[in-house]
């Protein structure tokens, strides 16, 4: 590049800058194409059933990408990540049904509540390492479910139901379903782009260093307690927002579906399947896992044991492809590393 003649000043420079930009954002290319494709699909087919399928897939991608910030970048396994989804849902549905807040404000409040919980938890339990942290996250999810089960303002074990009238403000029930889909699409895009910028930032480099060797990272000056807490908070916000959206679309919320532990485990399976620590991994994993699940649920032999298949899948990944699909591709084809970030 340095051999370029001095005469090609302006045009040469723009070309170089363009190349630099392409290189810088190469890793964002595939994630965006896949997610935008999934978002556009229901509009192309125009079928409600496609929209519902894509809703599940995009929700999985957004949740898995969020979890990946903690699990993949920072190396901390949270088995109870659904706690943020459930808490966000409860806060949001309460504010909408009892306090009459709009969906938008309720989603903001749900995200905020989840972030706040993660901040407090981060200070308390992120000192634990490895399996102890994972155990603590399960405990927190179960404690939260038990607490909400006994809280009268949240409806106790019965939960809360949204008055059907509420959908009128959003153009009726049918329209609200489309609206929910578009909100989810926007949140998923933000999460995926955010995940890319975290992965390629200085903050992200610190997280990766913590994942590889926390003590060595601290010696090099990574302020691990703060970095871990912020990673936890960032990984909790989107699940909190999406909890509100999901239960708004659902029309009601109960403790058991809100804090379902196996939902957490499915998130981990998706991240591991696609490739932990990569931006693309949770997208591939979410899409792959939900496709498999869709197949299993409609198959007469597997439909009752689809969760057992998820467990078996996790076992196989951990044993044979611990880096997941994208991680495997990165190792197999080092040249593609720039694209498969």
């Amino acid at each position, binding site marked *: 590049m340095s051999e370029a003649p001095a005469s090609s000043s302006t045009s040469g420079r723009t070309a170089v800058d363009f190349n630099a930009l392409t290189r810088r954002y190469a890793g964002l290319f595939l994630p965006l194409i896949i997610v935008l494709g999934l978002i556009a699909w229901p509009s192309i087919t125009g079928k409600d059933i496609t929209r519902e399928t894509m809703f599940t897939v995009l929700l999985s991608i957004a949740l898995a990408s969020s979890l990946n910030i903690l699990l993949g970048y920072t190396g901390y396994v949270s088995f109870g990540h659904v706690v943020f989804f459930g808490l966000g849902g409860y806060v949001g549905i309460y504010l909408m049904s009892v306090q009459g807040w709009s969906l938008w404000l309720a989603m903001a409040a749900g995200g905020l509540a989840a972030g706040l919980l993660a901040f407090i938890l981060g200070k308390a339990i992120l000192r634990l390492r490895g399996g102890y942290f994972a155990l603590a996250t399960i405990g927190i999810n179960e404690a939260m479910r038990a607490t909400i089960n006994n809280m009268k303002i949240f409806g106790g074990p019965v939960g809360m139901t949204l008055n059907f009238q509420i959908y009128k403000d959003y153009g009726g029930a049918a329209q609200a379903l489309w609206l929910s889909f578009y909100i989810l699409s926007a949140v998923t895009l933000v999460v995926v782009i955010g995940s890319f910028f975290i992965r390629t*930032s*200085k903050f992200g*480099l*610190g997280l*990766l*260093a913590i*994942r*590889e*060797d926390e*003590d*060595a*990272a*601290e*010696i*090099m*000056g*990574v*302020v*691990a307690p703060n970095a871990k807490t912020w990673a936890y908070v960032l990984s909790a916000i989107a699940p909190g927002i999406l909890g509100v959206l999901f239960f708004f679309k659902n029309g009601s919320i109960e403790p058991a579906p809100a804090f379902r532990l196996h939902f957490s485990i499915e998130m981990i399976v998706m991240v591991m399947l696609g490739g932990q*620590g990569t931006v693309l991994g949770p997208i591939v994993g979410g899409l792959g896992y939900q496709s498999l699940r869709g197949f299993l649920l409609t198959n007469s032999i597997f439909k009752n044991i689809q969760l057992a298949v998820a467990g078996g899948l996790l076992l196989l990944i951990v044993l044979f492809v611990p880096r997941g699909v994208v991680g495997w591709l990165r190792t197999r084809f*080092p040249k593609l590393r720039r694209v498969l970030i």
Partner: protein
Amino acid sequence: MILQVEGVSKQFGGLQALEDVTFDLPEGQIMGLIGPNGAGKTTLFNCISGVYEPTAGRVIFRGEDITGVKPYYIAKKGMARTHQIVRPLEELTVLENVMVGACFGQEDYGLREARHVAEEIMGFVGLSERAEQLAGSLNVGQKKRLEMARSLAAQPYLLLLDEVLAGLNPSEISQMVDIVKAIRSERDTTIIMIEHVMHAVMNVSDRIVVLDYGKQLAEGTPQEVAENAKVIEAYLGDPKLAERLLQEGG
């Protein structure tokens, strides 16, 4: 004085790992820290770099009391160290490893500057061709140089080297000794090095502190230490060996 260690002691349960260690380190010197295995050398490094809090005594770095300060804050004040047992960030590339040092150390570089600094330092320690390789795939000698590069990338005032020569073959040792000398002459960095390779440490150091069972056995120039009867008895063994070591180095 860049570093003052004042009566530092460290106790692990009933074990007195360090007892009343005191020394001053002027800027620009290379200080050798020697002693038999288990003498407390690495424990002393851990007390200086904030990994352990001393049971008693004070550590003063560039005029500031840093006793009990967390390692990451000490790193940002301009101290860096390597580990006796190498700790590469295995799944990151060599370049990324060195960038971590540059990004979070004393200078607190942004990613772009960190990359430039890392490239320069990788050239300095001879790792440039390995930049895009995963750190886990390096051999021992290269991993030792990576440790060195990471700590240098932080642009520290004080560098603690914990047995950077251990496990290296003779040609790697002389390479590494050259790097250490170059750090002092080109980079103005003060160094404390723990070392068992006697001819190297005798040759490189301005001053040597000898530890034995957590106590300071001797302190002085390499010549003085090599002739000290207590040091010979506790560590070097043979009086003639000490002389030979000095000659080998010279």
